[in-house]
């Protein structure tokens, strides 16, 4: 129970409560007020380096005998070459399908036998091999992880397996209205030539053409010590850990070839508001996504946007959820988000609403998207700021949580004191900041509106709203023609 907390203020607050006699009914007309923010003393990030230059960041969390080891590669799907979308994602997926002398089945058996979890994945700005393991088995598991990370073999029969798996999942994506809506919005906002307009996995057309050689070549350019950081979080000490890491990852060498680099094309200015309707006959709900191109993670408006989005649709009491769920009962939940990446990711407001209230729900969405441009009452602003700032300690609770926070620091090159100043920077957001951010990033007459639902029931109502032109999209236009499988 090594404390990470300065509990002084906590004790003072509680002392007042103890004096009251339990036998007397308490005065319920005076609800206890929230206390001051408890002080969060984050454990240190110990920064080391292997002999080959690979940076190692270690955070000691000793509560539970587990370890989280993430190897983060600063190249992801945004580094996919033009017309080869899905390359980074397929490369990552193939790492555990054969490595060193181990087959795909060997790797899975070794990891499962140790009670570990090992995954390899890529998103826009990073690829990562992540392992969670009981700390007593770390020494046995690290060599397997290192093989997967450093010596993948990309066997062609395994590539065919993964290919068929992915083609089938693209067929299945057509089942889920929420997935359809999400893919459609990205496609509309970014088009087919910008990487953000296509799912991480890529399209069936391209997935069919990947070869082992192409994956090996992407791997060789991106997976290298000078493009990577090793994160170790958990019941560890640098003294015990570093020799293990050195022996597993020390042989990794930086090649002479250049690293891949993101070159995302410029995005188009948003056209006038348009409604994109995807027919899903028989659907009892319409999945709505209303969005635009938002901001990159490096935006100077990062903190105002956190607060703004909390008010609009980032918490249960947010305006969208309160209006569409609590007041009107049109949905089980309505939310909004700014997806921030190295480039400007999408802003979107979302809900699944009952089919016969689709147009009413759209009206309420736009009522809120317009209302957020007006001054925000002080109480609402303070509530949102507290919500974001005071929840911050809870985002460091588990080894996995902590490792993800560190990944953000690496990928977005956040300053070393970033966490230490997070709460005060949220608290410093003023009403003028949120209003400026709202005016800049939420432009109601330039938003794309995607509705996936039962067209014959919802189109007349949507048309009557006169929100803008309506374009019909087919599933083939969104996903490409449904792939056929080899067998």
């Amino acid at each position: 129970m090594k404390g990470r907390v300065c509990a002084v203020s906590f004790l003072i607050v509680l002392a007042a409560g103890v004096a009251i006699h339990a036998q007397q009914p308490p005065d319920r007309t005076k609800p206890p007020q929230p206390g001051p923010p408890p002080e969060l003393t984050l454990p240190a990030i110990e920064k080391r380096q292997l002999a080959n230059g690979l940076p190692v960041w270690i955070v000691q969390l000793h509560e539970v005998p587990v370890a989280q080891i993430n190897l983060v590669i600063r190249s992801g799907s945004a580094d996919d070459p033009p017309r080869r979308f899905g390359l980074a994602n397929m490369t990552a997926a193939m790492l555990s399908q054969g490595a060193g002398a181990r087959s795909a089945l060997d790797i899975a058996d070794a990891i499962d036998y140790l009670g570990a979890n090992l995954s390899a994945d890529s998103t826009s700005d990073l690829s990562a091999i992540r392992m969670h393991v009981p700390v007593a088995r770390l020494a046995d598991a690290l060599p397997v992880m290192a093989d997967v990370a450093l010596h993948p073999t990309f066997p062609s029969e395994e590539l065919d397996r993964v290919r068929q798996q992915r083609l089938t999942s693209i067929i299945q994506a057509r089942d889920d209205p929420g997935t359809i809506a999400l893919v459609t919005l990205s496609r509309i906002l970014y088009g087919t030539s910008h990487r953000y307009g296509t799912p991480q996995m890529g399209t069936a057309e391209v997935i069919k053409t990947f070869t082992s050689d192409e994956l090996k070549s992407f791997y060789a350019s991106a997976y290298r010590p000078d493009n990577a950081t090793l994160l170790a979080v958990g019941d560890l000490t640098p003294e015990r850990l570093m020799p293990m890491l050195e022996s597993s990852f020390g042989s990794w060498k930086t090649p002479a070839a250049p690293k891949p680099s993101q070159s995302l094309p410029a995005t188009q200015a948003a056209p006038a508001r348009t409604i994109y309707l995807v027919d899903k006959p028989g659907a009892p709900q319409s999945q709505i996504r209303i969005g635009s191109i938002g901001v990159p993670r490096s935006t100077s408006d990062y903190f105002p946007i956190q607060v703004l989005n909390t008010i609009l649709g980032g918490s249960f009491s947010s305006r969208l959820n309160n209006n569409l769920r609590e007041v009107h009962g049109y949905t089980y939940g309505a939310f909004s988000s700014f997806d921030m990446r190295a480039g400007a990711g999408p802003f979107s407001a979302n809900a699944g609403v009952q089919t016969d209230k689709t147009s009413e729900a759209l009206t309420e969405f736009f009522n809120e998207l317009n209302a957020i441009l007006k001054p925000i009452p002080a109480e609402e602003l303070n509530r949102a700021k507290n919500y974001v700032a005071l929840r911050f300690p809870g985002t460091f609770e588990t080894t996995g949580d902590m490792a993800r926070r560190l990944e953000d620091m690496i990928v977005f090159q956040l300053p070393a004191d970033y966490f230490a100043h997070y709460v005060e920077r949220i608290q410093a957001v003023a009403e003028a900041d949120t209003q400026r951010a709202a005016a800049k990033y939420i432009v109601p007459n330039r938003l794309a509106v995607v509705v996936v639902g039962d067209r014959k029931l919802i189109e007349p109502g949507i048309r009557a709203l006169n929100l803008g032109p309506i374009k019909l999209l087919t599933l083939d236009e969104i996903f490409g023609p449904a792939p056929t499988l080899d067998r």
Partner: protein
Amino acid sequence: MKLVSVLLLLAVGSPALAQTPAQPPTKLEIQYSQFKLPNGLNVILHEDHSVPIVTVNMWYRVGSAREKPGRTGFAHLFEHLMFMGSGHVKYGEFDQWLEAAGGDNNASTGNDRTNYYINVPSTSLELALYLESDRLGYLLDAMTPKTVDAQREVVKNERRQSVENQPYGIADVVLGEMMFPDGHPYHWPVIGYMPDLTAASYDDVVAFFKTYYVPSNASLVVAGDLDSVKTKALVEKWFSEIKPSPAPPPPTIPGVALSSVQKKTITDRVQLPRLYLAWITPRLHDPGDAALDLAASVLTGGKNSRLYKRLVYDMQIAQEVNAFQASAELASTFEIQVTPRPGHTIAEVQTVVDEELQKLAREAPAAREFERALNGYEASFYDRMERLGGFGGKADQINGYYTETGDPDWFNEDLGRYRALSASDVRAAVAAFLPLDRRVELTVEPEKKQ
């Protein structure tokens, strides 16, 4: 004492385990204090100072199994009403106050229990206790027919989102109906039927609250960065005044069994068919329950598991296969789901599943295979100790163990259930509980294109 005996058993009684890598040394044990208020409320306190947060976790022994015919889905609808304000907390304030304190909250309803949690920074513990106690003591003071109507619509949309508009979402509803006879409380889905949600009334809310939302039918866990002595005083302050009321009698539902194969085919708006095989199996913690967890792992846990390896990896005739033991108080179910690849049929995959079930019923899994499954379970116990609050966090598990066994610190005993098993116990459980001639076989076929 219990702890010691489990560890000794491990050391001397299990030669197979001697070959496994070093066992994690830390004991699975939590420190707690426990007391009962005069009104019957059970209270458990657990200190964990690793992060400055606390969680207030409440379990009520009531779920959809206590619903009356014509009112399915009511326990869950009621759960929604618990967030709509109470005697001293106006509608909306519950969430607004907690958000202003940096808190979050949620609840879930199952067949047998309903659980609620509030996570807050440790300095706002008393606010969380105040809110939790006010809705137990004074919910009806704020309840109106209009409140019920508002959440009725939300819940209907929850059903649309999670059942009708969810690919294969209707399968679980149909499976329950096929597994359990009419009138058995697991026959209907927790989310309920639409006409019953429409029929739920304000009077139902009053009766349900007075019967089930009483201190003697609840258990409160307060855990996290707290001082147990001071927290006890705060719990007494806010919860002691709530009036006692007799606990509802436990359910008296006779056991059920399948006597033949029940087959059905339904359609959904999906691209690929899916096969569901399901059995009625031993209740939570009964002999066979843990062995079936390990059997599920031997069948579909990881690439080397029997069904995954044959169907997905070697033959490549299935996109995915999944098996699990869903443990519950009145009866558990064991389920296998397989989605054939395009060009392959339900019959093809079912033949392979049945071959593997028969094989596992005949021969115990190999030592390595069994240990792989066991090691995965053991590791999951440690992973579950990492998070304090929320669903499945430490506080929620403590309340679950208390509610199900009477012992809040049943972690080691639970793990001991698995460690006491051998490979032949897995075989025996498959032979005894997963017969091919007494089960449900449900197929979901894609709707015909219009």
